[in-house]
């Protein structure tokens, strides 16, 4: 099909599809009139039964914790996929310098950006940990906190310290950390199977509602998820960054800055 044919066919079909979907939505209860029962049951029982205050976390990591295990492995598989797709081919050289053979030198990162970026790192780390450990109490949890923690690493890149950061870890370490997070989730599930015959059964002491160590295994699962997501996201971003490395005149590399300065292509 040519582009024009495609657009024509789509514009004929889309209104019909839209009408069919709207016809279906008309059968739902009116907006703002959720009828339950599933959500209402869990809103009523989660706090007394699971000693959480954030019911969404109880749903994610306890009542429907098995779904979330699947979700974590979706992330796990995606990171592996990206690493595989962006792996160096035998006919490639590190950094693909030829791709950037524009002849333009990239100015070095200014000290102000560097200080600001590095200064934000400890704050971001603290915020990330806070989001993770309060998962069962307030909105947030292992997933959101894990992403925030990965952002802290990203700030180091932004500050133009790529070489310095690169010395901190090896890809194999990150892979292990990601796999460890995923394996820990499975292990916590198996704990329930071993002690009480049901996979994902939350068998640990529930603690006092409202404290950081409450809700049994939920904080542990949150930490496992944060490790997996944090390590996985750093791997994702490192792999993308790796594709964009440019060699700067003073031997340092700063990829992101280049995009931001370059603006629109000419």
């Amino acid at each position, binding site marked *: *099909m040519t*582009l024009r044919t*495609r657009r024509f*066919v789509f514009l004929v*079909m*889309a209104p*019909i*599809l839209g009408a*069919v979907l709207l*016809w*279906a*939505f*008309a*059968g*739902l*209860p009116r907006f703002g009139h959720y*009828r339950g*029962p*599933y959500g209402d*049951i*869990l809103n009523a*029982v989660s706090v007394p039964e699971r000693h959480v205050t954030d019911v969404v976390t109880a749903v994610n990591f*306890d*009542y*429907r914790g*098995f*779904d979330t295990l*699947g*979700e974590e*492995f*979706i992330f*796990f*598989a*995606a990171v*592996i*996929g*990206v*690493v*595989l*797709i962006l*792996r160096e*081919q035998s*006919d490639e050289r590190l950094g693909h310098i030829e791709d950037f053979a524009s002849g333009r030198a990239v100015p070095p990162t200014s000290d102000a950006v560097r200080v600001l970026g590095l200064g934000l790192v400890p704050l971001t780390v603290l915020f990330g940990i806070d989001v993770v450990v309060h998962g069962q109490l307030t909105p947030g949890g292992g997933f959101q906190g894990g992403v925030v923690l990965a952002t802290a690493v990203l700030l180091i890149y932004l500050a133009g310290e790529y070489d310095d950061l690169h010395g901190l870890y090896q890809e*194999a370490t990150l*892979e*292990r950390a*990601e*796999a*460890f997070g*995923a*394996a820990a989730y*499975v292990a916590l*599930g198996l704990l*329930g*199977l071993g002690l*009480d*015959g*049901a*996979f994902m*059964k939350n068998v640990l002491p529930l603690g006092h509602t409202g404290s950081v160590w409450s809700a049994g295994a939920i904080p542990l699962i949150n930490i496992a998820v944060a490790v997996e997501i944090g390590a996985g996201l750093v791997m994702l971003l490192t792999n993308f960054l790796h594709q964009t490395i440019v060699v700067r005149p003073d031997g340092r590399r700063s990829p992101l800055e280049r995009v931001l300065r370059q603006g629109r292509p000419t």
Partner: protein
Amino acid sequence: MNSLVPLPVVVPLAAAALLLMFGGVLAGSVVRALTVAATIAETVLAGALVHAARSGTIVYWFGGWTPRHGAAIGVSFAVDRIGAGAATLAGVVVTAAALSTRRAFGERPALTHALMLTMLAAMAGFCLTGDIFDLFVFYELIAVSAFGLAAFDTGDPRSLRAALNFAITNSIGAFLLLIGIALLYGRTGALNLAQIGRQLAAAPHTDGLVVVAFATITVGFLVKAAIVPFHFWLVDLASTGPVPLVLILGGALDALAVYAIARVYWTAFAPALGGHEAALRVVLLAVGAFTALIAGAMSLSTREPRRVLAFVLVSHTGTVLVGVGCLSALGIAGTAIYALADGAIKVALFACIGMRTGDREEVVSGVAVTAVLIAGGLALAGFPLFGISLGESVIEHAASSTGNPWIVPVLVVASVLTAGAVLRIALTAARTRGARPRAPELGAVAGVLVGVAIGARFAAARWAAGAASAFVASNAYGRAVLNGERVASPAAAGGVRLSGGSELLDLVTVVGALAIVVWLDWVRPRATARSAMRETTAVGYAIRRLHSGSLGDSVTWLTVGATTFAVAVAVALR
């Protein structure tokens, strides 16, 4: 026994995580051996569940969250023989695929094999789950694991394009599925399939919401099953993607997607839509028959071996959909036998063809390869020794006995076309003195799978009738899941008896397939043999143009197909 239920999912997942943790330092052959050990473990566990489920559906609640007052609060697995059998088939096929990774996935073996394991875990969960959102999660886990493998061959733009096409169309299918789930949840306040079924049946009449929810959910699975016109991604991927992934897609995944349609229909929709069964049946049979016929015809339009098999694959998924679309126990029984035998044969065929992966000018040759190809062609033609013949005749019987005898000639013609196409590849292989296959383990795999296909003729036939009767017993399923009753499997009464195929029809198909080969390769100009890779007819060229691998085309056809299907279902159920 009960604590066995989650293990077909948990074991491969744990193995995948451990492989990523420690596999980086291991040699490829060790990684492969560990992977095969995990896939065999899954196969044995799922097989044990088939045995355990013989006396009724096994219900397992994750986290120990049993339902309260008939309302599910957790996620359940509800295991019956058909579901566990599908999980077993997945295990066999992934084992075969894991044995054939040496050339395809030589680099970073720990990563590729970890993806195959997450994919297997997801397929097992997909087969066993009793919760519609859990079904979605596993649908996505299968897809995301497969995307990384599909794009593994990063040096080949066609392979990359196929991976993009695959990822984009499957994601849109997943969104449609999710919209259907949201519709059902808004109406019933439930995610458990049995509970949804009860709630929908309690409503006085079926309205637009139920109709469209059925349509969007079904389309979501049809995209994954690569039914025409949602098949473009599969043709592209099966003719360019890595062989082990193609084995999994062809051997099990497409059939599993159709299985999911049956599972959701019989648990969630049948209680409410039962009164409209005849009309719905016609829609599903029409889609399946159309796919079987069109893709069968297209399989003769090219001589590129993997492309031929891709169309054969699509055509046979159409037949599987016909079996499920009969909406009867007999149809399910026929489908189970057919899918098992057909999956094994397709794995054997792709394993042979795919030995020379990577170069575009594929030439297959060698005595063993030719033998497997001929056996495969005869099996597809309905040679009575193989399970395919029995399965197909049961499906035909099911269609006739539900008032749709027109299906019989359609399936016969589709078999003739696809068998003819495969025999043509066999002929090319026999006549070519090309490079010898260099992977002996593939020949072994193929041999074993041909054996499985023959075995299905005798073994599967014995339990398929009873298993299918239990599968369609919506009421018993609901009571087992929501009330914790141990419901005995219904006897295979209810008219489900498997009669052997008509030998005359089988003979007609075999002769027809041979006639096609003779016509296309001898009576018509010999030019086709010389330019094996080129399309030589106007029709072949047009079909190739249609399947040019354009992402925009795939999505346009998806929109057309989804809209048409939804409207057809709506009209049928009015």
